[in-house]
């Protein structure tokens, strides 16, 4: 399926939805790995919004990105409770293990605050991470 057809399929799934922009953006981000300016323009046309309005929304939320990043991504929680359980000490070695191959993204809280340090790779969650476990996780993705 080409890009236009994919976008059209996404739009079709949300016709009749109240406030469809966020669900559409999630779907576009999921399908293409980003919401680039061309997609913004198409979405704006579909929803009868200005491109500025769509861009404003895309740029507001941390989950949407303008360019895609093909690297595997580990979301590491660095919020207060995980800091209290020592996540900061794990970061330098994890960054080194990740190098340029793996994206180590900081997030704030995964709801695993009693068993941190915690990380997420897609739908899979990891807890009680120590340095060795986090480096192993980096190498495994």
């Amino acid at each position: 399926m080409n890009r236009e057809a994919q976008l059209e399929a996404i739009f079709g799934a949300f016709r009749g939805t109240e406030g469809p922009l966020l669900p559409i953006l999630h779907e576009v981000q999921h399908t293409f790995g980003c919401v680039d300016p061309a997609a913004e323009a198409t979405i704006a046309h579909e929803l009868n919004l200005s491109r500025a309005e769509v861009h404003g929304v895309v740029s507001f939320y941390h989950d949407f990105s303008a360019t895609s990043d093909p690297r595997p991504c580990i979301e590491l929680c660095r919020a207060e409770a995980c800091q209290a359980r020592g996540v900061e000490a794990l970061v330098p070695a994890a960054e080194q293990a990740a190098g340029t191959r793996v994206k180590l993204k900081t997030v704030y809280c995964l709801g695993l605050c009693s068993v941190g340090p915690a990380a997420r790779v897609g739908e899979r969650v990891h807890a009680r991470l120590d340095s060795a476990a986090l480096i192993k996780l980096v190498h495994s993705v």
Partner: protein
Amino acid sequence: MTTVRISDDAVALACGADDVATAFVAAGASVERVSSWGMHWLEPLVEIDGIGFGPASAADVEAILAGSSDKRIGPIAEHPFIVRQQRLTFARAGKTRPLSLDDYVATGGWAGLTRARSLAPQVLIEEVTGSGLRGRGGAGFPAGIKWQTVANAAGARKYVVCNADEGDSGTFADRMLMEGDPFQLIEGMAIAAHAVGAGRGYIYVRSEYPHAIAKLNTAIKLATVQIAPFEIEVRVGAGAYVCGEETSLLNSIEGKRGEVRAKPPLPAIEGLFGCPTVVNNVLTFAAIPHILIEGGAALYDSHGVARSKGTMPVQLAGNIRHGGLYETAFGITLNELVHDIGGGTASGRPVKAVQVGGPLGAYIHPGRFDIPFDYEAYTVADALIGHGGIVVFDDSADMGHMARFAMQFCAAESCGKCTPCRIGSVRGVELIDRIRGQGSAAPDAVSRLPQMHNAAKQAPTREAELQLLEDLCETMKFGSLCALGGFTPYPVLSALKHWPEDFA
């Protein structure tokens, strides 16, 4: 065949519950996936005929089945951590399969909704008001009064919106409820819909909770008939903390930037798509079904103290030995929560500080661990109960760094609508860096020019910088539109007040 019960809550999964479950199946046992008891230090927790084993790994399976495991903790329901609680909202925790309608009905499910629908909306709202239930999302606003406002508001279309954005570090009760007992939330929302005359509801869940999203979507499908004609849809957030603020959340559902709206108008009058809207936290809605059963409101009101009625699912997090979910009547002290129940720090070192109420809550010094858990008592102490998260820090914590982090978090998550928050937080980070000797305030070349009459010619003193930080916090407190900018000063100033040595 032996039946083994293992939780499928995200904490259990993150600690390896799936591997343990697979190993039990391989050993010939039948495995039932249930909600979590909330004793997170014991996850993955295995239950066989009421007896618990934990934290279990696949390697323990053989010994557990043979009855020779040293992971045995005895009868789970009699564990001191469970026995001391008053579980109303989490009454089913650990006991039922989250997506089993049979389990739900067998444990009293839908009784609240059935009774609620036999009552006139006005009577129902009065019961909720009479129970003393206050919003569990942070502000503690009486739920019944909010519902009354929506019920009274004119409008053909009304909405019920559940705030499941749970962004506060140290909180996970919403997540546990959505993953462990989703029908209870759905039932609570359906009761609210009957009370205010709403036809549609949304649950706004943060994207960081994929398991909760999946469970809710399935649960909503399964419950369609029970809640009809009311309909619920899950909306997924997009990684913005501020979208937990109710008006920002409504903008987000509408497909806009998650900018905070000025109040008035209240969402109860002009909320989602301009229609009267009930916005409540997950735990607020989840308390409704058991309040609405015969005698439930009076039972709820009989728990707690003063104006903080009922129970609070407290979340014990951070550097604590026995972390997890502890539902208890209001009035309990931090000493009891952190030491008696939580067992002190996980690291075994002395407790240095506790942050209650998430990133916007004050850091509380052990010297004040005697304040009772009560909305008003916390307000008087310049602290915040918020969503009931308690994050423990041991003596290795650097409170100057935590103060800086509070400002940094505010800068990262500010919606940008008002200046004290958007710019003040960035300046706050710089200022704390300078106070901590990691940045220079020496006047630059331009400031030193003779024609720059008003520019400082010397680097400010430490006293002047500290004064500036207090002034900045004052401006943020009183000049911000919402609590993100308005409450960030609490962790900052409390850290500065109790641990000034960490700012050297």
